[in-house]
């Protein structure tokens, strides 16, 4: 009997969203892989065979062992690096740094850029011109150049990398939310809110902002992949995260020297992990763009 009532019900937007998203199998695979990566990163200390940064657990004699070889205490499925650290464990820990740097910088940039874009669109005039001029200006420089300037200016460290990534990304969000907000601002509910004499802050963040979120989510998802990729690049160049908190990019850099002597795995497997991360996020982002695109919604 219950099935009948469910059929009669109006389909909720969330349910429609989920079924739309699930239409493309590849996107679902991407999502599943991405969730697994997040779980691996979060639970790394509990699921990895060794803590690669605890010196008591590392056997220096096991340095640069090929994948699948057995060491004194455990089998190294993906081999070991020059310090004798288990690469699989290293990758899980590296994923932790990569994902958290990517996510944190995206959230901060989303908040920062989103607020600026919203303020610009809502107030218009001079404030809008100044904010957008700065955003345009910044977008006329390649992201890597901005990051290089900031990193060479601020020095190294996880916090500095996050600042650099935020600086590279905020303008995308400011532009995205501004173009949506400019359309929304002309709608009737905004007029109604203005007539009710609610404060600007409340109108902006309670009424205007929730309606500008969908495109921001799409841009945000793709930008997480960009942020992770840029952080990996900077770390590979040796100007990213410090050695104490290695990300995937730094693991790849560490293995790079041994690649020419044939010990490919030290660089290769962290590279594969990076590739899987970026591709899975992009698959999810692509499908989100199609599902959330207002022009395609019936």
């Amino acid at each position: 009997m219950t099935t009948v009532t469910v059929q009669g019900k109006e389909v909720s937007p969330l349910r429609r969203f989920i079924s739309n998203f699930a239409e493309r199998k590849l996107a679902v695979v991407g999502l599943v892989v991405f969730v697994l990566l997040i779980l691996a990163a979060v639970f790394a200390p509990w699921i990895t065979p060794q803590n690669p940064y605890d010196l008591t657990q590392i056997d220096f004699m096991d340095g640069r062992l090929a994948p699948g070889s057995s060491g004194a205490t455990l089998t190294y499925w993906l081999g070991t690096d020059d310090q004798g650290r288990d690469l699989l464990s290293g990758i899980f820990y590296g994923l932790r740094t990569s994902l958290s740097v990517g996510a944190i910088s995206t959230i901060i940039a989303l908040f920062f850029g989103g607020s600026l874009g919203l303020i610009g669109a809502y107030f218009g005039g001079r404030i809008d011109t100044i904010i957008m001029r700065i955003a345009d200006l910044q977008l006329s420089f390649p992201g890597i150049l901005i990051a290089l300037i900031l990193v060479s200016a601020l020095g190294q460290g996880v916090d500095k990398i996050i600042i650099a990534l935020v600086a590279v990304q905020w303008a995308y969000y400011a532009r995205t939310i501004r173009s949506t907000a400019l359309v929304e601002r002309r709608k009737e509910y905004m007029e109604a809110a203005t007539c009710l004499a609610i404060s600007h802050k409340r109108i902006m963040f309670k009424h205007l902002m929730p309606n500008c979120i969908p495109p921001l989510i799409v841009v945000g998802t793709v930008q997480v992949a960009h942020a992770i990729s840029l952080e990996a690049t900077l770390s590979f160049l040796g100007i990213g995260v410090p050695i104490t908190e290695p990300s995937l990019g730094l693991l790849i850099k560490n293995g790079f020297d041994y690649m020419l002597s044939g010990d490919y795995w030290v660089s290769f497997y962290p590279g594969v992990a990076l590739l899987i991360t970026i591709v899975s996020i992009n698959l999810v982002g692509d499908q989100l763009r199609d599902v959330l695109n207002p022009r395609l919604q019936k």
Partner: protein
Amino acid sequence: MLAFTIRRLSQSVVVLFVMSVIVFAGVFAIGNPVDILINPEADIAEQEETMRRLGLDKPIWVQYGAFMSNALQGDLGNSFVHNVPALEIIATRLPATLELAFLAVGFAIILGVPLGMVAGLKEDSWIGKTIMTGSILGFSLPTFWVGLIFIMLFSVSLGWLPASGRGETVDVLGVPVSFLTWDGLSHLLLPALNLALFKISLVIRLARSGTKEVLLQDYIKFARAKGLSNYRIIGVHVLKNILIPVITVLGLELGNVIAFAVVTETVFAWPGIGKLLIDSIANLDRPVVVAYLLMTVTMFILINFVVDILYSILDPRVRLGGAN
């Protein structure tokens, strides 16, 4: 027009000033170069003497003032490490980077345009879809990662191409170039392809959408009605028309290619300015870092300025829009 040019020019100058302050102040804060340059066993007097010689004992704004007045005269200071003018080091390294960048742009055209045209002509076939998937990968994969795979595949496994360095060079008008010797060419191939990858993906997209658009035009129908062969229509009429946006975009992207060369040059140990920058950051060689960043920033500001002026000539709405 004059008012627009002046306004745009003053904006460029302001940006350049802000960037120079950020770069200078930031690089100043990176660390104390004295610790690296002076023998740790030197006594205080010797240290102070070296600091005075390098001008590091003065307050930061005095250093900035001296730096700017010298910079305007084309003197960006001597490299702490090599003890020759920073600009001179950059000038000797620049040809290598330019060679790489131009070849990369060449690859982008030679490979990107035909692939994009095929993708546009055979949009629904597997070949078109494969090309488009490839271009998505080219966009999303980090450059350094692809470079590593290139080295792993072509240098380590197959042993076809060398993985690092510039190889044998020949002097042309006093400038060493690699592409005229076999050895140099083999060294050049992998890094140039690596650097080109992103641009190839970009050109594929431009060429594909261009082809799809051009195919619907009347002059193509007319060419078909005239009985021209398919090869001639695609190879001449379509190709010529899609090349305009491709070349415009690639011209704008040349600056980007030079900025991204930092990554490729590091992977392939290519002795250009990008590798110089990374080495200089590692060595805390402040003048070289500042000179590189200022030079690149100036280059971008110049490109943007010229493009804006050209656009405002071609499309008056640009300068009218900026006026209010």
